[in-house]
């Protein structure tokens, strides 16, 4: 991909933005990614030529809008290795998708005394819905522990997942630790015990080739905005039988077959979940993002990120007083790097990096249980994506060194 790199950078006009008089070095991709022209152009074209409400209309624009809306379902299902576009439900994002599984599937399939299993590295969006569900039905929430270097502990998984487990929900890739979880192995374990496997793919789908069927996932959730797509659109993929047994949570509009005064029949999945006007332009933009990623090639994206983390990790590791969370071997890491510098609060560090145009995140990354598990209040996090370069990595390292100098030696 590196050969195409210069062209690719041209696709992201925001990367030329000046931040505090320095060129932007955007390393907050785990929070949200930037959007290529192709995605923005597609959204604009849709609004300027095809915009209408879907499904309900006889006229030409309605037909064009509907066609695109449904075609993206096919793109999505091909992209994640499913085989039935009707297994693709559009949601606002990963958070809504996981909540729908918890409240729409869990509320009728998880019972008092049952156990739900997550891990210590989960994002709040993959913890709080299960806490709520557990409290509501009287189930128990259990946590798989991590190994000393921050990987999912499969031994722990084997102990925590038992015949009482009805549902296991794990992130495919961590938004803090830079690790990819062995979903396939855990799914097998879950299935052996009769539990279903829910996967939070927010940090995986943008960065690697995903095949929901090979993984053995029963539900799989991800967000458009983290994979070059627009905000406000995401996907819940679910097995047909499971979606059929899942209650919709938003009633009205197009999800309906027949409305009586006191009773309503719903359509088949995925339509029964898509109540009200959906984020149609968002769907179209998601389709364009998938096209873009497909053109670049997911394997190239993964390789590029790996080469960057191999480049930057040793440099980072050499900085005195740094602590990096997750495995130290770059071969098993993604482009997500969380770290702390002794004596410098991550908030202060992020402000300093911002002065150099370097955008990183500081805080708990919506993973407070993990922070407690790691024994820290917060960390700084740099997360790389396909448009980041070695030059970005150098600027990042330099900015850290400058900041360290600034805060430690009182050079002010």
């Amino acid at each position, binding site marked *: 991909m590196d050969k195409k790199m210069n062209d690719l950078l041209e696709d992201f006009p925001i990367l030329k933005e000046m931040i505090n008089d320095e060129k932007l070095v955007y390393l907050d991709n785990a929070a949200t990614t930037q959007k290529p022209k192709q995605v923005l152009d597609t959204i604009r074209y849709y609004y300027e030529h095809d915009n209408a409400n879907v499904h309900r209309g006889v006229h030409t624009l309605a037909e064009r809008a509907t066609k695109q809306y449904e075609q993206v379902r096919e793109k999505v299902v091909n992209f994640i290795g499913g085989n039935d576009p009707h297994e693709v439900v559009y949601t606002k994002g990963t958070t809504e998708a996981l909540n729908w599984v918890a409240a729409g599937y869990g509320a009728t399939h998880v019972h008092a005394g049952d156990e739900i299993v997550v891990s210590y590295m989960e994002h709040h969006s993959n913890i709080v819905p299960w806490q709520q569900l557990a409290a509501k039905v009287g189930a128990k929430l259990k946590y798989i522990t991590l190994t000393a270097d921050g990987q999912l502990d499969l031994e722990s998984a084997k102990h925590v997942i038992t015949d009482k487990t009805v549902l296991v929900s794990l992130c495919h890739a961590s938004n803090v630790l830079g690790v990819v979880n062995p979903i396939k192995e855990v799914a097998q374990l879950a299935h052996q015990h009769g539990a279903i496997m829910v996967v939070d793919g927010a940090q995986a789908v943008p960065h690697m080739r995903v095949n929901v069927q090979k993984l053995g996932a029963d539900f799989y959730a991800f967000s458009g905005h983290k994979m070059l797509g627009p905000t406000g659109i995401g996907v819940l993929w679910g097995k047909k039988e499971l979606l059929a047994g899942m209650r919709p949570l938003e009633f009205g509009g197009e999800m309906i077959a027949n409305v009586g005064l006191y009773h309503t029949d719903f359509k088949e999945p995925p339509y029964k979940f898509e109540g009200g006007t959906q984020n149609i332009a968002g769907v179209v933009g998601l389709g364009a993002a998938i096209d873009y990623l497909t053109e670049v090639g997911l394997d190239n994206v993964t390789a590029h990120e790996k080469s960057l983390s191999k480049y930057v990790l040793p440099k980072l590791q050499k900085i005195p007083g740094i602590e990096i969370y997750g495995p130290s071997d770059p071969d098993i890491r993604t482009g997500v790097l969380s770290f702390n510098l002794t004596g410098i*609060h991550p*908030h202060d560090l992020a402000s300093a990096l911002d*002065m150099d145009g370097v955008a990183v995140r500081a805080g708990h990354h919506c993973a407070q249980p993990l922070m407690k598990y790691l024994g820290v*209040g*917060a960390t700084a996090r740099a997360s790389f994506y396909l448009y980041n370069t070695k030059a970005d990595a150098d600027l990042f390292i330099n900015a850290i060194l400058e900041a360290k100098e600034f*805060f430690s030696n009182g050079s*002010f």
Partner: protein
Amino acid sequence: MALSKLSNLYRQVIMDHAKHPHNNQPLPQADHEIELRNPTCGDVLTVQLKIQDDKIIDVAYTGTGCTISQASASMMTDQIKGKTTAEVEKMVLGFSDMVLGKEVPDMERLLGEAAILQSVAQFPARIKCATLAWKAAYQAIEESENDD
């Protein structure tokens, strides 16, 4: 270097307060206490007050946080000690206006050394850090007034 603007925020006196914060210990004789959290970063700050006859007899804080929140808490405790609750409420509102970039009449007199945190207004993402301790003091005073 691009960090020059940063010196506006991290002045020597702010760094000193953060490194050697004043009144940064539990206050056993406190009669009012508020714990506040900066949800973005997870930092937690507990402010404790001893109030008598509407006057802040003593004040202290515990908790961790960034330079700005630590320095601000440290300065806050220095500045409000001995003031009346009405004065402190006015100070907190003034402080809040100041870091939002609004004009605060008589700012230096009102806030004393804490007026140096005015520069936070140029770093909007850090406003919450700066105001945390002041908000906690305000809420503790409000609580004390409800007790009466």
